[in-house]
C-alpha cells in the first residue's frame, strides 16, 4: 500500500506564495540525480519526473538516465514547483492524475509563473478533453500508460529539439 497518498498536502491555494518565496532547501524527495556525467554537466539536459506512483517514477528515472539525460523525480506537483530545480529543468514528464494538484494544474501554474517548459504528460486515464487542453496549452506529448518506450524517446527528442543531444 502506498502511504504517500495519505500524507499528500493540499497546497493549491498556497502555491503562488510558495513560488514567489522559494524555499532554499532541496525538495526532500528529489534524490536521484545520480548520473556519472560530471564532466558534461552543463551540457546534459535535466528531465524532471513528476508522478505519484513510485514504480512509474523510478522506471522513468531509469529510462531517462539510460538515454543519457539527467533525471530528478518528484512525488507530486507541489514538490516540483517548490523545488529550486524548476528553472534548470529542460523537460518535465508529468502524470496527469495526482493527489493534490493535477498535472494539468501544474502546467497552468508554470505558465502563469512564466515558465515555458516542454511537458510530456503520461496518464492512466486518457481523456480527450484533457488531452486537447494539455496540448493546446503547449504540452509536447500526451501518452497513455502503459506506453511504448519508443514513443517516450520520440517525445523526449521532440521536447529537447534544438538542444544538444546527450
Amino acid at each position, binding site marked *: *500500500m502506498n*502511504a504517500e*497518498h495519505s500524507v499528500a498536502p493540499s497546497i*493549491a491555494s498556497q502555491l503562488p506564495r510558495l513560488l514567489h518565496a522559494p524555499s532554499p532547501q532541496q525538495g526532500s524527495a528529489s534524490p536521484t540525480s545520480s548520473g556519472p556525467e560530471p564532466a558534461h554537466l552543463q551540457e546534459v539536459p535535466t528531465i524532471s519526473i513528476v508522478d505519484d*506512483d513510485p514504480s512509474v517514477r523510478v*522506471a522513468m528515472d*531509469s529510462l531517462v538516465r539510460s538515454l543519457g539525460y539527467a533525471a530528478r523525480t518528484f512525488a507530486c506537483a507541489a514538490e516540483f514547483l517548490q523545488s529550486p530545480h524548476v528553472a534548470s529543468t529542460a523537460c518535465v514528464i508529468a502524470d496527469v492524475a495526482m493527489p493534490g494538484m493535477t498535472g494539468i494544474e501544474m502546467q497552468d501554474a508554470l505558465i502563469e509563473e512564466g515558465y515555458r517548459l516542454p511537458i510530456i504528460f503520461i496518464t492512466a486515464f486518457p481523456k480527450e478533453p484533457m488531452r486537447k487542453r494539455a496540448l493546446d496549452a503547449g504540452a509536447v506529448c500526451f501518452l497513455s500508460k*502503459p506506453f*511504448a518506450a519508443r514513443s*517516450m524517446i520520440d517525445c523526449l527528442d521532440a521536447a529537447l529539439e534544438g538542444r544538444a543531444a546527450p
Partner: protein
Amino acid sequence: VLPAPELRLQSARRCLDLAAVGSRLRQLSPRPSRACPVPSRVGNQRAIIAILTASPESTMLMLLHYRLRIHALSTRARIEAAALRRRKQWVGSAALAGRLGGAPTQSRKGRPTVRDTPHPTVFAASPLLALAAVSIALAIFVIDTFTILDIAIAVLYAVVVLVASSFLGRRGVIVVASTCAALTVLGYLLSHGLSVGTPLVRCVISLFAIGIATLLALRNQAAVMAIRGQAQLLDLTHDAIFVLDMNDVIAYWNRGAEELYGWKADKALNKVSHELLRTSFSEPREEIERKLLGTGRWEGELLHTKSDATQVVVSSRWSLQRNGRGQPVAILETNTDHTERKRAEDALRRSEAYLAEGQRLSLTGSFGWKPSTGEIFWSAQTYQIFGYDQGIEPTIELARHRVHPEDLPRAHQAFERAAWERRDIDLEHRLLMPDGSIKHMRVLAHATTDLSNRVEFIGAVMDVTAAKQAQGALQQAQSELAHVTRVTTLGELAASIAHEVNQPLAGIVTNGEAGLRWLAREQPRIEEARRSLERVISDADRASAVIRGIRDLAKRAAPDMVSLDINEPIEAAMALVQSKALRQQVTLQLELARGLPMVRGDRVQLQQVIINLVMNGIEAMLGTSDWARRLVIGSQPYEGDQVLVSVQDSGPGIDPETGNRLFSAFYTTKPDGMGMGLSICRSIVEGHGGRIWAANNDPGPGAIIRFTLPTCPGRLSDRVPGQP
C-alpha cells in the same frame, strides 16, 4: 243375616289387612287406586323384615320393589279398568279398602279416574276421618245400647279403631281403643245390666275384637312408619331417581329429581318421561331397550331439558324390575348431573386438543425426563418427530437411536452435564431418520426437582428443519446478492482498476526498455539493468495482485470463514479504491492499529464491506470542495473482545432523520444508486456476528461509519462451519 262370630273375626282380619294396605297406598303410591290388588300380608311382613334387617341400599330397592309392584298393578288396573269394574267382588273390596283408608274414592258413584284423584295425605283427611270415626262410634253405641238387635254390634268398634289408626299416633289409637272398649262395656251394662248370658259373651267377643284390631293397627302403623322413614332416604340422595312403567310414564319422582329438573313430583308424575325431559339419547332407543331387557341394566349418558329449558347432561343408570312371572313391569332410572363434570371434561379435552394441535402445527413435542429413574414421557408430537409409534414405551435408547451419529456425543454430553449440574438444556442437533432424511432439532428443557429433590426435566423438542432450510436459503440469497453487488462495484471501479493495472504495466514496459538500453551501452551498465529487471518483477507482482483481488471479488463462492487480521482486507480494498479516490481528489488516510487480535471472517466479504464504505464516503464528499475531501480508514481493538473498523469522511454528514434507514435495502440518496451497498454491509457484518452503525463527526463536518467484529476464539468459533 247374622254372621257367625268366626266369620266376623275373619272379616275383621280382612278389614285390617285392607286397611293396612290402604294406608300404605296413600303413603307410598302416587295415587290411591281403588283397583289396586292387595298384596298379601305375608308379603308385607317379608318386606318389613327385609327392611328392618337389610342395608339401606337394599332397603331402598325393597321399597322400590313395593312401589313398583303397587304402581305396576295400578297401571294395569287403569288400563283394564272396564274389565276390572265388572269383577264386582274385587271392586267391592277395593271400595271398602278405599273407604277404610279414608281415601275419598267414590267408587260406587261412577268411575273415578286416576288423574282427577287428589294426592291424599293423612293430615288432609283427618278432620273428615275424625268426624267419621266419632259418628261411627256414636252410631255403634246407640245401636248397641238402645236396640234390641241380638248381634255383636260392638264388634264394629274395631272399625273405629282402624279408622283412628290412620290419623292418630300410637297413644291416640290406644285411647280410642280404650274408649271403644269402655263404650262396649257401658252399652252392655246399660242394655243388659249385670246379667250373665249370651249378651255377655257378645260383649267379650267385641272387646276381644277391639283388642286384636288395636294390636294389628298398632303393629301395622309401626311398620308403615318404618317404611316411610326408609322411603325418605330416597329423598336424601342427590341423585335424581324416578320410576317409569313400561310405557315410560313416571310413577315415582324423588326430591333429587325435583331439584335437578325443577318439576315437583305432582307435576312430573304420570307424564311420559322422555316427553317431559325431552330426552336426547346417546344411542338408539331400541339398543337401550334391547340391553335393558337382555341384562336388566343399562348405563349411559343422556341429555335432558330442565323445567327452565336449560339442558343437563346426566349419567343415567337404568334397572329393570320384573314381576313374579318374569315380565318387565317398571324401570328404575337413577340420574346423576354430569353437566359440570362434562363441561370440565370437555374443557380439558378441548385444551388437550388445542395443545396437541398446537404441537402438531408448530412441530413442537414435549417431553419429561427423570434421570434418576430413567422415566421418560413423550407427547404425541414427540413420537411423531422421532418417528415412532405411540404404543412404544419411550426410552433414552430410542431417542439415541435417532440422533445423528455425528451429533450423538455432543447431545449425550449436553444431557449428561445438564442432569449432573441440574441446569436447563438448550441444544441443537440433528436426527437421522430411518429413510435417511435429516431433521434439525432444537431441544429446550427446564430443570426442576421433585419432592425427593431429584432432578427432573420438562422440555420441548422443536423440529426446526424448515427454519434451517429457510435460513440456508436466505444465506444463499444474501451470498448471491453480495456477489451481484460486488460485481456491480467492480463495474463502478473499472476505471480505477484499469489505473491500478496500468501503473505497474507502465512500470514494466519502461523498466524493460531502460534495462535494454543500459545493456546496449558501449559500456553496459549491468547493475542498472539488474535493478530494472527487479522492478519489472516487482511491478508484475503488483499487477497480478490487483488482478487476483478482482478475481476474488468477482467469483461466486460460498463464504470461507478463516482467521485473519482485519488490516488484510482493508489494505486489499485500498488497492482497488485508491485510484477512484485519487480521481475524485479524495485523500485516503490509513490509521491501522498493528498487532490486532484475529477475527474470523470471509476475506472477500469483509473486503467488500470496506470497499462499499470507502466508495460511499467518496461519493458523499463529491459536493464538497476539493481541499476538504479526506477519508480516514482506521482499525483498533474494541471492548476487549472485538475489533472496530471505522471509515470517516468529511462530507455533509448524515441527515439525522435518515440515520436509521441508512442500512436498509433500497435506501439511497444517489439518483442512480440501487441502495444495496450499505444494506449488504450490514448483512455481512451481522452475519459475522458484528454490528455496524453510523454517526456524524463531532465536531463535523462529515460522517463516520463504524463496524465491529468479534475476535476469535469467540462465539463464532462455536458455530457450525459454513454458517456466518
